[in-house]
């Protein structure tokens, strides 16, 4: 299994500043790309709601004065053993053998929402207007594009990130930037207790300790 390619994102929690540029660039690309449209309902109403493949959440840890604010981007983790895929009754949800991306065939999806129940991460969102399940595609229509400049053949969120908090690559290739970051900096997976083997990894925060150590030295 490890010999296959597995594309994924590695997200550095040290440098994410919670600017939501990945959220908006994702929506911008994907609403007009092959995964779109990602529709919005009541866009100018009291409770606007819409489909997004990526969300940035914020958490606080610790107690004063040792507190931290953590911005936490969350999208489909492209699990190596994705629980959402075998439950799909139509085969609309599938994991690509060639690069491990989990995708939805919108023409086959019946909108039964069962895959979203079977995802512990809440990574899938039903598009209210199209009534089909949608999710992060790792910008499959960008990364294999033959018309975009080679430097832009990356997921929109990765290109948009102003702090370079998002690395993209093959996590099965030990030489890739993503794999090296995971290996060298203790990259971890979310909710390992369910054995979904997420391909996306997060780099743990160490910046607070580093800053404290530097302050102590001076």
């Amino acid at each position, binding site marked *: 299994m490890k010999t296959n390619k597995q594309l994924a994102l590695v997200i550095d929690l040290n440098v994410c500043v919670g600017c939501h540029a990945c959220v908006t660039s994702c929506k911008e690309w994907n609403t007009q790309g092959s995964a779109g449209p990602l529709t919005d309902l009541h866009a100018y109403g009291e409770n606007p709601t819409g489909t997004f493949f990526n969300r940035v959440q914020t958490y606080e840890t610790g107690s004063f004065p040792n507190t931290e604010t953590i911005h936490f981007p969350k999208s489909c983790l492209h699990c190596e053993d994705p629980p959402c895929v075998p439950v799909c009754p139509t*085969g609309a949800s599938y994991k690509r053998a060639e690069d491990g991306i989990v995708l939805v065939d919108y023409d086959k*999806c019946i909108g039964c*929402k069962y895959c979203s129940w079977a995802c512990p991460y809440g990574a899938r969102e039903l598009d209210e207007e*199209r009534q089909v399940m949608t999710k992060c595609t790792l910008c499959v229509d960008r990364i294999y594009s033959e018309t975009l400049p080679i430097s832009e053949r990356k997921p929109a969120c990765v290109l948009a990130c102003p702090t370079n908090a998002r690395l993209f690559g093959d996590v099965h290739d030990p030489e890739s930037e993503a794999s090296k970051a995971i290996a060298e900096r203790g990259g971890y*997976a*979310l909710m390992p207790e369910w054995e979904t083997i997420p391909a996306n990894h997060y780099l743990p925060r160490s910046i607070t300790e580093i800053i404290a150590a530097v302050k102590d030295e001076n």
Partner: protein
Amino acid sequence: MQPNFSLVFFTTLAGMSQGLLFYIAIFKSQFNLLSNSFLTNLALPVSFGLLIASLLASFFHLGHPERAWRAAHMWRTSWLSREVIVLPLFITTVMLAWYFSAQDKSFLIIWLAIVILAFLLWICTAQIYQCIKFIQEWAHPLTFINFLVLGLTSGWLLFGSLIWLWSDAIEDAYVKIIPAIGIVLLFIALTIKLTIWKRNRGLKPKSNLNSAIGIPNTRIRQTSMGLMGGSFNTREFFHNQTNLVLDNLRKIILFGVYLFPILILVYALQSSTFSAVFIALIVHLIGLMCERWMFFAEANHPQNLYYQRIS
């Protein structure tokens, strides 16, 4: 989870019909007790109607019902797909049984198929929920046992009520046997429900905020879920009811599904009032809808950890 009424109706109505057909098949094939006119004009049309109603109800939770036929494709891996295959087979077999009973014929093989398909449908329906291992309230054999026993119980009460409606079908023995077995089934169903509730109260969630975002700090709270107007995640996985509503619903379930029907059946047994079985069925059914609503509401999805605070 947010309970979905189409699934509440589907699981309760189909379950009751499966129970009814199970008893029809046993009574007809093993004891030859039911007349063909009772089967042709009442029992089989009612079972068929309930199955069709539940099938229609199930379409309402699909975003694209016109593509429902595609759902038979992934039967190798998906319990939902298996259910989509078993249900039409079951309905077809019931139609065959109905056709032959109208011809005054009865074939053991068809009754056997009805019993087997009823059980297969129970397994599929329950497994759809039971196989999601991280919804810990569902991931237990009690989910199947509860569906099975409540189907057999509501089916029995409906069976008794239909016999009461078709006065020709009443035999003296029924007046005692039907309430008596009903009481036993209700007691078993009640024990299972109480066991499930006890298990749910003792469940320790395997996932928590630490494992959800991978940060080991003991003090951790969300300050923003990243959106303000709600999303699919906030609509689909939260029931948005207060604990007071849930507690009151549990009381309604306890009395509606189990205790009142038991009391009514005890009265039916004591006074030989067969019509009371029908009253017990109505009360039981109202309770059953609440029970199934609660089945969904009680399920805690780990994705909810990510959606605790708007800002």
